[in-house]
């Protein structure tokens, strides 16, 4: 199982870059679903002796992050005519470049951090840098994209990054907490989806750029 981990982590990095470089919102959501599935498999793969807990958590992650949430996001934007991200603040090439910089930075920082765990139980070295890359790419999407749906995608990537970091601690953070975290993320995106749906109806497009009424005059 452990041999699987590194290829999966690399695939996670690729999905990050894909979201950064893609203009179609539906394709972004699909990439997010792929990332969610990878995360689910990963959480089963990192734990050495296969346990009920890790399998349950992995399955839950796949169901929530790869199936339910992407389906729900697609429902929220079904009514929109515009399916493309309008002019991001930073262009797609620029985002990809920044993503690459973020990746370099993450690996640099992760190398300087003290090792997580010790000896044989130490998780794969790539886990921490990939977690950081995912987190930074999520932030980047959140900041540079104007559509509310894409911002939700960015938030989920950010949350995925935190989740990846959490995988270094599987044996220390109890099952109950992991389930609570997963549930909270689920509800958060659920509520965001509903708000996106209303923004869509109210403004005829799901662009958060229209949300400029409230500011200091």
């Amino acid at each position, binding site marked *: 199982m452990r041999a699987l981990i590194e290829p999966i982590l690399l695939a996670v990095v690729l999905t990050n870059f894909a979201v950064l470089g893609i203009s179609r919102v539906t394709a972004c959501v699909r990439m997010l679903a792929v990332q969610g599935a990878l995360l689910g498999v990963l959480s089963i793969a990192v734990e050495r002796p296969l346990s009920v807990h890790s399998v349950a958590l992995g399955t839950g992650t796949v169901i929530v992050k790869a199936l339910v949430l992407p389906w729900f996001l697609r429902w929220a934007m079904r009514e929109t005519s515009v399916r493309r991200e309008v002019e991001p603040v930073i262009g797609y090439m620029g985002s990809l470049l920044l993503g690459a910089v973020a990746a370099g930075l993450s690996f640099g920082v992760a190398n300087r951090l003290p090792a997580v765990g010790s000896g044989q139980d130490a998780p794969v070295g790539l886990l921490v840098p990939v977690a950081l890359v995912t987190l930074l790419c999520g932030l980047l999407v959140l900041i540079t994209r104007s559509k509310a749906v894409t911002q939700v995608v960015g938030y989920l990537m950010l949350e995925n990054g*935190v989740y990846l970091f959490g995988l270094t601690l599987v044996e220390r*953070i109890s099952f109950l*907490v992991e389930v609570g975290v997963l549930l909270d993320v689920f*509800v958060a995106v659920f509520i965001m989806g509903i708000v996106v749906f209303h*923004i869509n109806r109210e403004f005829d497009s799901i662009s958060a750029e229209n949300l400029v009424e*409230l500011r200091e005059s």
Partner: protein
Amino acid sequence: MLVLLVVLLPAIGSALAFAITRPSARLVVLSVVSLAHLGIVGALWVGPRASALSGWLAVDSLGLLVLTLVSLLFAAVVAYAIGFLREESPRGGRWFAGCLLGFLAATSLVCASQHLALLWVGMETTTLAIAPLIFHHHDRRSLEAVWKYLVLSSVGIAFALLGVFLLATAQPAVGGSRPLIFGDLLSHARTLDRAWLRAAYVFALTGFGTKMGLAPLHSWKPDTYGEAPSLVSALMAGALTSCAFVGLARFTAVVFAAGLDEFARPLLIAFGIVSLVVATAFVIGQSDVKRLLAYSSVEHMGLLVLGLGVGGVGAFGSVLHVLNNGIAKGMLFLVTGNMVLATGSSAAADMRGLLRVRPISAALMLVGLFAVTGSPPFGLFVSEFSIVSGAIREHHVWVAVALLLLLSIIFAGIGRVLLGVVFGGREGGGGGGGERVGADGGGSRRDSAWLVCGPLALAAIVLLLGVYIPAPLRASLADAAHMLGGSAP
């Protein structure tokens, strides 16, 4: 057992409120749960403080203090809600009561959690429970407010989760301390890995700081408080930010116990000063009462972290200030809500001269003005005084000077607006508001008893806290201050 009940009871009530279809029955559930919650909290003060769920849930002094604040504030808000729903059509009534009770459950969980990841789960749940309530009016402005709030606080809270995970990483696997249990973290603080602990603290400060609304992470605050119904703003400014402070305080206590004072204190002081400066800048010339109160909340959150940062008596002042600020801010938002009900607007210009229209609310607002700006004899004077004297005694004289200067400017800024609301005559621009008063009909002209009893009780408490602090309360405050590396005066 009691501590489990304090979380479970509102959670069950919330589920019940979602299930019940009759609006009046929902209000009964809301009131009964609120009173029972108050009763349980009272029992926690008197009885033994046993833990539940193998030490994951327990109340310590800090937790109990904030839990009491939340419970009192919630009771006042429920009484207010009864009057509020009579004057305004109870839109989305099921969501209204269900989310309010869900919020109470989540805040109780934050206060009672000794496990930091569980605390995080509670903190995130508060965000989610309050979001539908911000959206109560279902218009464009509230849509924008709820979106900003959701995105910013979700990102903040994700950072806080990373902080929790990093803290777990800092904890050595061997050595007998249970992972992320606050008491064990404190007693084994010296064994924590310092590099990871620093990283954990930076993320926790950013995350919980966003939830508290410390500048420069406060941008959601004026919009959200401005657009949400006033009783929701009252809960957010009084209870939600205080719970976020509990989260930050727990991390801070661990960091102090680990001997990283020199690292954490300057960060806290910097956040505090920046928040005060930003609040001062936006309080001056603010024309909307609810946004004004939001910036006042930024100011008070700044004071809280500043008190933690300077330490000594400042930490005591900080803990006392959580209570004072929560009650005063809750009261002011409720009173402002009465004004909004009377005029249909939260702009100060529309509210002018309300002494004639709603005299009780106007009088309460005057009380609130002096309370929230830290004038004697109200509680906030005592706590702000402690923070300033903490700064002087711990050799941060310049911090104390800046603090006094900024506080007096804020006093002038808030005073100008609120005094205008209470005593001002209606001239230029007041006409539009006047028409709306007429359109609302005679019923909304007077304050109903439900609408003033909550703020009245809160005003009495904040006055009492300024004059006399009962012995058990003082002991708890001193204990919490001691935990946060400070001392009692």
